[in-house]
């Protein structure tokens, strides 16, 4: 009996080793371990044996059954893994095909992106964002901003008029005035928006976008303006940038400056051995106008907001063109591209 059990174990183990598919293994299981197979029969017959034989025979038969089941299961598991792999390989697809469903691409206009980028710089510096009407009073657009009664910018050849005292704002600066009339200092705001001038040529469109900045507080200085614009220039054009201030003239600031940023396309005006086309070899690029708020501007609002007494507060203001910044930064050669809305242009900046 014990001999037969040992025989069965050897025979089945050899057959398991020889088996090459899970189906063969399944056959072996039925043949040797199924209900009618020899080993289960032996186990069932143990109770009929002589009591002295029952112990050893039962133990051996049971151990044999456990051993064989284990051998078949192990082998079966190895087959299952391999066969699954095989099936998965057959299920392969071309993963170089595009995803599905394909989303339509979309994107913000370069002007909006540039505007947001600049807004975010000043939000970080603690500025709020003020907005105001585009159809504006002459009083706010020119008078309150210290433009002389005959200032050429007032001329109908330069400025769009809607009526005698109403125009399309030529800068976002009137929002300065509107903001100061309702908000006492300290005041830190930027004013983005559309503005209009009667120009239409290669470098001007009659409609364009500006961001104006205004900081009014006790002791605000020209050095503060310089530091603020330096922070701005580094944020927009890169940490290596420097700025320089050149004295200039604007009616609503005194002193007034134009601000250049160091060219980011060349080294000292030379790019690839040639004169740099971006800065015309000067190593500097003009980006904006600025200055200390003229006392006359404070005076124009201090009737209603006495806190803007020029003896008490000082301030700086700056104004820059979004189109210019966007074109400089993103190498856009022609202003018209920004208003053409060609999808092939728009998707380049999506």
């Amino acid at each position, binding site marked *: 009996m014990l001999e037969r059990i040992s025989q069965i174990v050897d025979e089945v183990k050899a057959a398991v080793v020889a088996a090459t598919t899970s189906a063969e293994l399944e056959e072996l299981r039925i043949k040797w371990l199924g209900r009618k197979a020899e080993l289960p029969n032996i186990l069932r017959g143990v109770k009929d044996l002589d009591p002295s034989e029952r112990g050893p025979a039962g133990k051996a038969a049971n151990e044999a059954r456990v051993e064989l089941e284990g051998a078949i299961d192990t082998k079966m598991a190895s087959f299952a893994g391999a066969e699954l792999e095989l099936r998965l390989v057959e299920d392969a697809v071309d993963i170089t095909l595009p995803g599905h469903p394909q989303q*339509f691409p979309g994107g*913000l206009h370069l002007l909006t992106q540039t505007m*947001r980028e600049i807004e975010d710089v000043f939000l970080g510096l*603690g*500025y709020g964002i003020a907005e105001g009407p*585009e159809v504006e009073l002459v009083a706010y657009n020119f008078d309150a901003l210290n433009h002389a009664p005959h200032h050429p910018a007032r001329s109908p050849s330069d400025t769009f008029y809607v009526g005698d005292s109403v125009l399309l704002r030529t800068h976002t600066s009137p929002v300065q005035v509107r903001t100061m009339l309702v908000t006492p200092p300290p005041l830190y705001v930027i004013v983005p928006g559309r503005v209009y001038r009667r120009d239409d040529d290669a470098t001007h469109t009659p409609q364009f976008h500006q961001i104006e900045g205004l900081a009014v507080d006790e002791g605000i200085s020209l*050095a503060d303006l310089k530091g603020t614009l330096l922070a701005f220039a580094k944020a927009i054009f890169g940490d290596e940038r420097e700025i*320089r*201030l050149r004295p200039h003239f604007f009616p609503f600031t005194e002193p007034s400056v*134009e601000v250049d940023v160091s060219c980011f396309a060349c080294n000292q005006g030379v790019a690839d051995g040639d004169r740099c086309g971006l800065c015309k070899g000067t190593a500097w690029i003009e980006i904006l106008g600025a200055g200390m708020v003229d006392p006359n501007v404070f005076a124009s609002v201090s009737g209603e907001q006495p806190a803007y007494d020029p003896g008490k507060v000082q301030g700086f203001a700056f104004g820059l063109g979004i189109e210019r910044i966007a074109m400089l930064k993103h190498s856009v050669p022609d202003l018209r591209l920004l208003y053409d809305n060609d999808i092939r242009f728009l998707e380049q900046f999506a």
Partner: protein
Amino acid sequence: MKVPLSLLLEFCDPGLSAEEISSVLALSGTEVERVTRLGVEDSSNFVVGVVLTADQHPDADRLKVCTVDVGAPEPATIVCGAPNVGAGQTVAVALPGAVMPVGMMIKKAKLRGVESSGMICAEDELGLGKGHQGILVLAETAGPAGRALGEVLPLDETVLELEITPNRPDCLGVYGVARELHAATGAELKSAPWENDLGSAGALDGIKVSVQDSEQCRIFTARIYEGLSAAVTPPAIAAHLTAAGMRPISPVVDITNYVMLVVGEPLHVFDLDKIDGDLTVRAAAAGETVATLDGESRDLVEGETIIADAGGPTSIAGVMGGARSEVGPDTTRVLLEAATWHGPSINQTSARLGLRSEASGRFEKGLAPVFASRGQAFASQLFGEIYGVAPAAGTVVVGAVGEAHTIKLSHAKVNSLMGSELTAERITGPLERLGFTVSVDGDVFSVEVPLDRLDVARDVDLIEEIARIDGLEKLGATLPTSSTGGGRLTRQQKIRRQVQDALVSSGCFEAAGWSFCAPGLSDRLRLASDDSRRNAITLVNPMSSEESVLRTTLLGSLLDSAARNAARGAAVIRLFETGPVYLPSEDGLSDEPQRFGAVLCGPSTRPDWRNASPSTVDVHAAIGVIGQVLDSLHCEWRIVPVAEPEPFLHPGRSGVIEIAGRPAGWVGDLHPLVSTEWGLDGGVAFEVDLNAVISASPEVLHYSPVSAHPMVGQDLAVVVDAAVSAAELIEIAEEVGSPELESVSVFDIYRGKQLGENSVSVGLRFAFRADDRTLTEEEATAVRQRILEALQDRKGAQSRG
């Protein structure tokens, strides 16, 4: 303004190169637009020549053989191809050995068999400009033959083209620029050319001048020069004028131009013998005319300032002289006028007549009255130098040069406004170099302003002078120390950004549209004659009629952009814009409500390898985009059919967008006539009021409990009359299905013959769930039945099983 560098250096020479001087000027406030090098590298072998003969070349039609006196014992034979060469001309000659600006050296050479010993030069060949119509013919007075050409032409010159800001008319003369250079560098400033005045004050015999409006003419001065005879403009002056872009004409005209170049004051000269009686500066009367120097007869506009004599207008003040009193070769007595005119009036008159000149351009800037007396003084020196005459005794002066005023300047204010720590020396130094007179009293400076600095009236004006001359590069860069803590977007700004972002995520590109549009847009959009959107704000002075009104809808420029893209072959067009429209308001200004809108054309989903030909966008594609935007902002919204559809939309495929129960926009297929008008293939559009979104979007989102119990899903298909909308069915289901109904959606719409002409089958998918227990299938079925019964009762729905 063109400034010959050599002239500038005569007054202040800091020993710097042209580039360095440009940089110094730019960083102290005088922008240098261009630095131009004139002339040749080496001016030796360039001489003045006189053409003695000019005969046809025997073997070449286009060449002439000239004999030219070049100051040598024998005339030179020069072959010349210029059509304008002729005997008697005074010309510029490059002799053998001369090196032309292009680098070519002139040699003796045979031209078609005739030996030529030099070249008669054109303007461009001498590096003086672009003129190449023929040879440069010099004034006879440029001679004699053989004189070095560099003495009469700027052959070795650099020209700085300066942009003088409108506040600095004192820099409209070279001496003013020299003072700037002196102030910025500290290099010596030579004494002013007007300092030694040869003329005298007091009454002037022979002419009387009256000024009727002293606002138009702050000062009028005049001197008389008599006994003028033939004279020659000194070559150096001629060369400087040429370099500054003014052609030498005659000594008397050259004097006026040279004074203008150096001092900044334009002068006018009358032939005294042609003035009829006394002069009056007055406003022109209606219908008056004047014959001007250029030979035209000009109609004057009433009120324009003129100078008149007994014979009527004789000159348009500050703009152009009159022909009647023009100086000519026979003139022996002149009246020299130096006046200060009202800038804006000069601007208006010169613009009206199209007569912008160096002179009117200066007057427009508002010159200081003191310029007039300076101009007279320098002119007197030049008359003496050129004609050898002194001015007749006396000077007409109507008006005054004004009185110097003094400004108090606090030392602390300077440093507070600049953010600097300047010493007293660094404050007084720049001011004194600029011509201010400074006295110090403790912490306060008393600063007397020169008469030509009309722009300096307040302490801040002085601080600007200090800052720019001390040097802005020395200024520190600091940040304001305090802040309002206001560094955040307003709710409106935040939501506008979110709307833009949602439109981008739904696959749209943002367009930048024009605020202007054509009045005809309303017709193209088929707006009714009483449509309020026809009531647009009109510009008084548009660039063109196509841009003459402000938009009342975003649709126009979106359609224009879509049309351009379609014409260029774009298959997918999905453009949006956010921005204001401009609606007339009662106060004469405008309401500028912010909108967002889009135009979509092409496939409704992106074609790919699974679905190469998706259906074309329709109103539901647009609603999908709107839904993505409004849902992302948690707005309550729906689309409702409308009795009077928008005229530019398909009447059966359009609707009103309601946000929080109020109409807030429109959506629909474009009307086929509108699509055709813009050359589009179909297309859908929408426009929504951004403010409606802002007020409907919850400021803060609050948690609502989520049930831990499982959901039971069930479907129901009902057949209803086609006039019943899906929204109505859903509304009933939501009402009746409460509280177990968690959500309901339409999963199928079917129309077919077996349903009958006017019926539609609507498949509804319910999600049932209880908050407090596991809902059984039977309970769910009961709710479904409740909904079905309500649909049957209220809408005549039949279950499709």
